[in-house]
């Protein structure tokens, strides 16, 4: 064998100096040691991105609006006595900023309260879609083979149904409220997440570090949770964040068509629908809920876009 006794000692010193130059290089930012992960980098990016800040402030405001509408208005849209027909279509005034609708109800109160349904639909649908889509996508990508084939074909069936058409079909037999609308939108929306998660898992599962974990004897659960998910989840989060706004507008569209949230429930889509009959006479009744809807969708899409920019590895 090799003559090795003399070799070892000298080598230790040599290999140690190997790390030295970068030791001095990295010495400066030592205090934020653990922060250099992709997530913390992304957070740093987001904090500096004005698009994200504006979007996030709007979203936060909207969440507060949805949680405690009483903070912003003393009225309640469910108080039947509050609406007086003689106020029908009155224009905005200092006491009633958004004016009155056809029924003589205060548009401001209704617009504020309608935020809750939009937020419920947005968050519930996104949560359901993420859970179902990424769950099944993970299984399909990780298990592969026959299971993947079956799940993928099954997904394609759902993928082929246009959201609005499918929504109309299913909702026509259901009680329309925020929760049923969420379930319907989620039923039709999960295939998108499924596909992203599946391909993301497929990409990651052949990576050497997954091999390395298997070589160490790691089980399926550990590999999934420690290695696959953290690396596969970024694109899913990005799409989820962007589609939250899309679901809110889909709810409005369904409600506008009369197959989403049903009265006495309130929704911006419903309000727009009611106002559209007379919009030439009383444009303000249409304008305010429509504006609220647009700003909300825009806010979520801004946040989603900023998150994508921060997480997209191609831009870094």
């Amino acid at each position, binding site marked *: 064998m090799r003559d090795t006794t003399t070799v070892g000692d000298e080598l230790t010193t040599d290999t140690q100096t190997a790390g030295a130059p970068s030791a001095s290089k990295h010495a400066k930012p030592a205090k934020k040691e653990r922060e250099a992960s992709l997530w913390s980098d992304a957070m740093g990016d987001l904090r500096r991105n004005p698009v994200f800040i504006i979007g996030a402030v709007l979203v936060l405001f909207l969440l507060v609006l949805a949680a405690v509408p009483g903070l912003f208005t003393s009225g309640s849209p469910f108080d039947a006595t509050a609406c007086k027909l003689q106020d029908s279509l009155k224009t905005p005034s200092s006491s009633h900023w958004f004016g009155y609708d056809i029924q003589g109800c205060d548009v401001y109160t209704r617009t504020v309260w309608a935020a809750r349904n939009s937020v419920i639909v947005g968050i519930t649908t996104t949560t359901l879609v993420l859970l179902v889509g990424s769950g099944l996508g993970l299984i399909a990508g990780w298990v592969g083979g026959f299971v993947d084939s079956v799940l993928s074909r099954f997904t394609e069936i759902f993928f082929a149904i246009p959201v609005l058409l499918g929504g109309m079909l299913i909702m026509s037999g259901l009680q329309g409220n925020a929760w049923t609308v969420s379930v319907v939108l989620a039923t039709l929306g999960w295939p998108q997440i499924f596909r992203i998660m599946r391909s993301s898992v497929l990409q990651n599962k052949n990576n050497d570090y997954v*091999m390395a974990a298997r070589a160490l004897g790691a089980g399926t659960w550990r590999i999934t949770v420690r290695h696959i998910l953290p690396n596969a989840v970024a694109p899913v989060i990005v799409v989820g964040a962007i589609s939250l706004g899309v679901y809110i507008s889909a709810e409005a569209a369904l409600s506008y068509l009369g197959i989403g949230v049903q009265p006495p429930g309130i929704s911006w889509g419903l309000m727009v629908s009611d106002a559209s009959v007379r919009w030439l006479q009383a444009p303000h009744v249409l304008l305010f809920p429509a504006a609220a809807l647009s700003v909300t969708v825009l806010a979520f899409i801004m946040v989603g876009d900023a998150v994508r920019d921060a997480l997209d590895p191609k831009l870094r």
Partner: protein
Amino acid sequence: MAELTKNVTEREPILQVRNLVKHFPLTQGILFKKQVGAVKAVDGISFDLYRGETLGIVGESGCGKSTVAKLLMSLETATSGEVFYKGQDITKLSGRAMKAVRRNIQMVFQDPYTSLNPRMTVGDIIGEPFEIHPEVAPKGGRRRKVQDLLDVVGLNPEYINRYPHQFSGGQRQRIGIARGLALNPEIIICDEPVSALDVSVQAQVINLMEKLQDEFNLSYLFIAHDLSIVRHISDRVGVMYLGKMAEIGTDGQIYEHPTHPYTQALLSAVPVPDPAAREGRERIILTGDVPSPANPPSGCRFRTRCWKAQDKCSTEEPLLAIPERFRGQDVLAAHESACHFAEEKAILAV
């Protein structure tokens, strides 16, 4: 050289590979897949690995050398054949028994950029073996052990909370080596461990690996395509071509007395970094490419690119054995070579 051979034969084999075969099925179909053929990545490989030695495996891309590594690590299931670790066939082991064996056979990967999970800190990466095999290190002492390992591979133990992307390629490969060492294995399978590194850093990592081998009495299976590095680190060398072992012997036998035409061509094609040394040197330039492993030539697999090929080569597969003409002789050419017409040819060694 003779001493080297003797030394090896006295040792016990720690790993014995016998007729190892891996065929990847080629399938067609959307829901129900049917097999339409197979890529014969590894097609009947046998060799021994002795305790404390380095066995180099060389060959071009697609020769199946990386698949051999994966089979030995049980990252792929062998189509047939056996791998004996201390006499026990590990290809047939159940999950639990396999997990115990894994502690003793570890791997260092080629690409230091993809073999470390970018979302984990160095401490988590090197500490993961202990989480999977908690019996190796008690929970309280793991951080200490990880820091010791960093120190052993020549990295600053304070780097424990850093992420892989904060390191250069060479440093990452050291992290990969530390992970491979964590469980105190007896065998480390190195799949092209330095080919992704810069020239000036390669030597550092090779030196580190040699130092660790002596320190921990490791056996290396060193898979690479760089013939000069393999020669430097290996005690014995096997040459693979298209899923088969073409020739195997001590480094002196393979590099100075190759008898297989493929080995001869391979050695002569290596660019020598010295224009003076290569003047007048004979070069064998093979024409054409390596045939597809899905449809290898009949008989000897090298015959389509071989200048010695005759009818016999297409009908009769040469076995890996000491060629008849050298049998019983005490010459360096007397080593296993899978060629009907094995003979020596003077080649300037790298």
